[in-house]
């Protein structure tokens, strides 16, 4: 295998893994600002324990 291609494949896999966590974090953050459920519903704040 071409050593350059080998290094490129390794870099792409590591970059992909990093991107996975960055996207996951950003998606959670976008969802978390609403109800915290990660569903991106954009509504009210969550209840405190025991309050209803």
């Amino acid at each position, binding site marked *: 295998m071409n050593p350059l291609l080998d290094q490129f494949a390794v870099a792409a896999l*590591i970059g992909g893994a990093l991107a996975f966590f960055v996207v996951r974090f950003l998606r959670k953050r976008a969802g*978390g600002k609403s109800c*915290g459920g990660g569903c991106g519903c954009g509504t009210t*704040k969550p209840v405190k*324990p025991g309050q209803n």
Partner: protein
Amino acid sequence: MTPTALEPARGEVVRHVAIAGNPNCGKTTIFNALTGLRQKVGNYPGVTVEKKTGRFFGSHGEAMELLDLPGSYSLQVRSPDEAVARDVLLGRLPGVPRPDVIICVVDASNLERNLYLVAQMLELNIPIVVALNMVDVAEKNGVVIDLMALREKLGVPVIPTVGTKGVGFIELRQAVSRSPLPAPAICAQMPIVLERETMALARQLPVAPEVARGEALLLLTLHDEALDAIAHHDRAIIDATRAAQQRLTASGIDPLSAPVDARYAWIGQVCAAALHKGGAHDDASISDRLDSWLTHRVWGWVAFLGIMALMFFCIFTVAQYPMGWIDSATAGLADFLKDKMPDTDLRGLLTDGVIAGVGGVVIFLPQILVLFFFLGILEDTGYMARAAFIMDRLMSKVGLHGKSFIPMLSSLACAIPGIMATRTIENRKDRLVTILVAPLMSCSARIPVYAIMIAVLLPAASGFQKAGIMLSMYALGFIAAFGMAWVFKKHLFKGDTPMLLLEMPPYRMPSLRGVLQRMWERGLLFLRRAGTVILALSILLWALATYPKPSDPEATPSEAIAHSYAGQMGHAIEPLIKPLGYDWKIGIGLLASFAAREVFVGTMSIVYAVESEDENTEPLRDTMRAEKHADGRPVFTPLVCLGLMVFYVLAMQCISTVAIVRRETNSWRWPLFQIAYMTGLAWLGAFIVYQGGRLLGFQ
């Protein structure tokens, strides 16, 4: 052909159906049977209550969205779970459409109590189909229900069902598909003065006219504190409610109890017409007889420990064979790649990173499936409530009640559903204490760590011995959870020990389909996690354990990993973990598994695979057993293995749990406190095992 208004597009949802009922009436069994695998689990907007929806098809093939509402005894709510059920039915929850039909599941063997919720639902002006579930159990108990009379008295379709056997589902689908479905015409008759005040208040409410009466009636039955806490109505409405309550009190009607009395009077009439209890049984029912053993103050404990021991024995013996197959498959794949590819970084990443990391975790899938098989059976049979009951005596000693034990039992599967299950605890302080201690219960993610450590510690031991060690780790988790709950209740959240009010559902034959479905869901979740988070983490860990490479091309793999970023991090925390008997490579595992406990095993696989000069892939257990310090002493001595297990029993090491605690407590204070106290406790536990063991002369 283009769809018309009467003929919806293919697959388009024509009806939103909610499934509601008391806890333990078989709601979820009916939901699962109707929707099969077409389910979606999410959250209700605004609250952290799980929302389970699924699609099913009516008798003419029309698609319907089925929503599984949290179980509740009435619409006068006591917990966040019940509040969600009420808000969905009243159409208050943004983003969740008010249901077009309610399938109200009623436990036929407990008709009188279940009819209270039906009475309230009939006041909501939504078409209702009553699923009279568990008619077989009712029959066995000598309860005879006159269906015609019940239909006549309720004024809505009543379909007898047996959820576990699929009886009555065709009729249920037909009843829900009926078009048009009329709104109920009958409901409990309220005293005339109360009815007048209700209608007057209903006219002032800024809600849809069809829900106004139900909403007004609910407002009138709220006490002062609950009225003050209302955020979804203006002050003017609250004042109008208070004025109406005062007028009612002046005319001799208690607004809080009058609707309840009226509903019970109506239920009395319905039951008098439709419910006939057969000849009184002199003999105790099978449930009662079983309970006399399983909730006995001595035999109850023996049974509980016996069931747990059997579960762990099966985890080690039954799961052993498929684990062997997965191990051979991953080793074979790694060897195949090593044979076919030149020795480059890419080959290293694939074999030592991806295959070692993901394979090291996936191998434990069979054990996790066995655990969920047992938990599913225990839940379905109704044994969980008995376990909570026998635990109540112990729980009351630490200031909590048996209800807190159910989230703790759920945490045996995973702390996340366990922490979410604390929503059923009404008292805020008790709920917080339960949230803080629930992650101390050994979850399924700890199984890989325990299993590998037990395999290194006792490679030739029998299934019984291995199960014994694992059981003792679970017992340590229980003891730590109880001990910390006692400390928190004594110092942090002082308060009275609440009384336990727990419903004991009758014992039922577990539904194999339901248990297998849950195993499938959990297995899929585990594999998805392995294929996403753990795969990505494995790649990053391999990179951290490989780069930067040493400048000397002659450096050995051990020198190379010591030179890498991971090696540097391991060395950095070595002074902290040296008193526990750990070296810097274990330190890498501890650091990496902060995200998720099971990553520890994958990380150790990667670290030793990167370091290995051997072309053949060795099982991790053998590599760990052969691992030596520079002076030739073995790294994984019995004390180190035990200490590591104790560390993982007590440590938080789960980023998802941190996130859920943050969400449930709506603050960062508690998750940070939890990380601090659990990490401290874990370090102390491992220190005592290692140093204490050495003082006693062990290795």
